[in-house]
């Protein structure tokens, strides 16, 4: 009786091999093992995702260097002030909105863009007569002619949704060129933060949330909201190509970019999970 040896080193008889479809070659072995199938899927997923050159073709063609973050357009609803909790909730949302604006510049500065700081931006914004909506739609070429700004980043905080163990925030990012007026980058993201509570239902700050609350001197809820919007900013804006004068501007063209539509799920330990969606709802 002749015995064959499959790729995993198991000796089988010819009959067994005939009946059980002998696994010869690397692909059937990979498909048969769940771990390697996962690897294969990951490799395939990374190969099939869009490249930065295709995703941000306008940025690569216009090569902006100076970006100005326009004042935040906060469309989220506030509660009517009936109890102290309502007031605290509104304060928490206000602080989170401010933190969203403050942390928007960091990933872009790390990418080699020039961005004015929050106080300087506030001074520039104070000289602007147009409303946010007008700025978003009208001609903004004067920003280039008078201030030397190549692109303006508009951030719109659409809504906050709260359930007992999750907070969801919807934010829209639009980067408009001051040269051509085109939208160089437009993304709407829904980020969800999973929370941990104690047996009474009170929020438990874990890890960086606790550090944040201690450092900023705010309550747990505000800290977790701030951390959520900060992570969202980091995740979304980090994907933009590097600035025109940055060394990586040309070398990172073929790195996979984020998918066109995606949501984020942030776990209590700080890890981020990206959920690819077909179309943003």
């Amino acid at each position: 009786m002749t015995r064959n040896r499959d790729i995993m080193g198991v000796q089988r008889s010819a009959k067994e091999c005939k009946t059980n479809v002998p696994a010869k070659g690397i692909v059937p072995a990979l498909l048969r093992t769940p771990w390697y199938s996962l690897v294969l899927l990951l490799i395939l997923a990374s190969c099939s995702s869009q490249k930065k050159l295709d995703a941000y073709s306008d940025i690569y063609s216009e090569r902006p260097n100076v970006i100005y973050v326009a004042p935040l357009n906060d469309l989220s609803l506030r509660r009517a002030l009936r109890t102290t909790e309502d007031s605290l909730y509104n304060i928490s949302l206000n602080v989170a909105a401010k933190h969203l604006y403050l942390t928007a510049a960091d990933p872009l500065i790390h990418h080699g863009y020039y961005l004015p700081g929050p106080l300087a931006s506030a001074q520039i914004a104070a000289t602007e007569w147009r409303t946010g909506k007008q700025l978003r739609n009208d001609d903004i070429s004067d920003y280039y002619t008078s201030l030397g700004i190549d692109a303006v980043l508009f951030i719109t905080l659409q809504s906050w949704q709260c359930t007992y163990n999750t907070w969801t925030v919807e934010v829209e990012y639009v980067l408009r060129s001051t040269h051509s007026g085109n939208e160089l980058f437009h993304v709407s993201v829904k980020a969800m933060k999973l929370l941990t509570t104690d047996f009474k239902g009170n929020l438990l700050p874990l890890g960086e949330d606790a550090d944040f609350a201690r450092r900023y001197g705010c309550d747990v809820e505000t800290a977790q909201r701030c951390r959520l919007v900060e992570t969202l900013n980091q995740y979304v804006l980090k994907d933009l190509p590097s600035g025109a004068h940055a060394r990586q501007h040309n070398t990172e063209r073929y790195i996979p970019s984020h998918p066109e539509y995606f949501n984020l799920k942030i776990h209590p330990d700080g890890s981020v999970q990206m959920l690819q969606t077909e179309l943003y709802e």
Partner: protein
Amino acid sequence: MKKNDSHKTRSLLTLCASIVFIFHFSFFIFSCSGEYIGVPRAEVLRYQTTPTYGVLHELATAYAVSLNNAVKADTLHPGMYAEYGVTLALMGHTGTACRMLNAEMKAFPESRGMVTRIKQRLMPDMLIDTLATPRDTANLVQLAAWAYDSVTALKPLPPVAAVIDSTDTVWISLQTPVDSVNYPIRLTATEKREILERQQAEEAARQQHVADSLAAEKQAAIEARKQAQLEREREKKAKEEARKAEQQAREQQREEERKQKAAQREEERKRKAAEREEAKKNKKKQND
């Protein structure tokens, strides 16, 4: 031998999987790590929620420490000098603030436009330090005069100086009745709009006044022309009447003269007839 091969393949696949896993998750970890780039966010957030002088002072101190560390470590990020400069300017230390903004402009030349705008807003007196070209003084004086007039109507306090920059931001120094310190007053958007509307209304009224005065002048000219024409007609009529009267008088005189001549002729004829009669009578007497 075959067993060793399969082990090799398995370890190779595990290595590949680990690399892919590390690549993907390191990207997640890197993208989500909190980063600190010279902006003391806690202080900025505190200043934005409670904008008091004390918090501003803390913010300036934090910026100073951050800037000092960045300069020492040669990790200067864009906007750090400008942020510190703006904080100092808000505290009133315009000299140092101007130096910081100039340093920002020197370190990052692309910030020139923004620094100029910030200086125009916070310290217009120091603007000449930034701009190489002198400003249009005549235009500035004219604008300042306009701002002075406009703001006097809006603000109850008497302004002592008014400056307007190229971004139509009006800067008014007010002397309060309590103390004699001049405060730069930054007009709000509503006030600016009011000024603009007032200016537009004044411009419209001026244009209306000009148009009205032009129309009045035109009407007056028409009236004068009509009056002159009437005057001329009246004079013409008077001349005509005078000429007619003169003619009548001349005719009357001529008639009287004719009558006188006729009467004289008649008298002459009568005298001649009487003489003739007398001569006839004398002749008859002589004959007799």
